[in-house]
């Protein structure tokens, strides 16, 4: 069975269980609190997944490191390349004033 089929099967089973509880298709007479808990479940899981994604993105933005040395070296190389090309007669587009410093990938795996 392919992974896609596995996921679809799992999702359908969970979906059916949710439908059974929410719409009381089997007349299980569950206590009302559990029915109240069940029907927002799909939206709740989506919101939780969204929160987790947002938190992960935020955390990785906060812990992503700058590399001062690599940035300076890179800008020196850019300058050198530009001068070299100017000598050979190439017209350069104006460089942006506030060039953002590059970041290096030293975040631990």
């Amino acid at each position: 069975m392919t992974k896609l089929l596995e996921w679809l099967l799992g999702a359908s089973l969970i979906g059916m269980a949710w439908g059974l509880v929410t719409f009381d298709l089997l007349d299980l007479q569950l206590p009302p609190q559990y029915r109240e808990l069940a029907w927002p479940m799909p939206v709740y899981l989506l919101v939780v997944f969204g929160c987790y994604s947002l938190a992960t993105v935020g955390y990785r933005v906060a812990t992503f490191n700058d590399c001062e040395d690599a940035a300076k070296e890179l800008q020196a190389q850019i300058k050198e390349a530009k001068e070299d090309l100017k000598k050979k007669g190439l017209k350069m587009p104006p460089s942006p004033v506030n060039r953002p410093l590059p970041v290096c990938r030293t975040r631990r795996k």
Partner: protein
Amino acid sequence: RPFINTPQATGADQAVGFGLVGFSLLLFTYYTIWVIVLPFVDSDHVIHSYFLPREYSVILPGVAALILLLCVGTFIGVITWKNRKPKKVD
């Protein structure tokens, strides 16, 4: 530990990043109490006054998702319109 020995992300990056983390934690906590905890709390408890009726716990995320889709679509539309090039005449 990344915050002490290695070079750090700049202040703005950290502020935004941790702000996002804090916001999602708050949202998660409030929403979890609303959806999971409240059904098991007596209906005359004072905590219910801090939460909207239960229907809104589904309606509000739905509306938020619609607004998000609208923003993304508008953004794509604006960018596409800005980048339209006049057709070449042969």
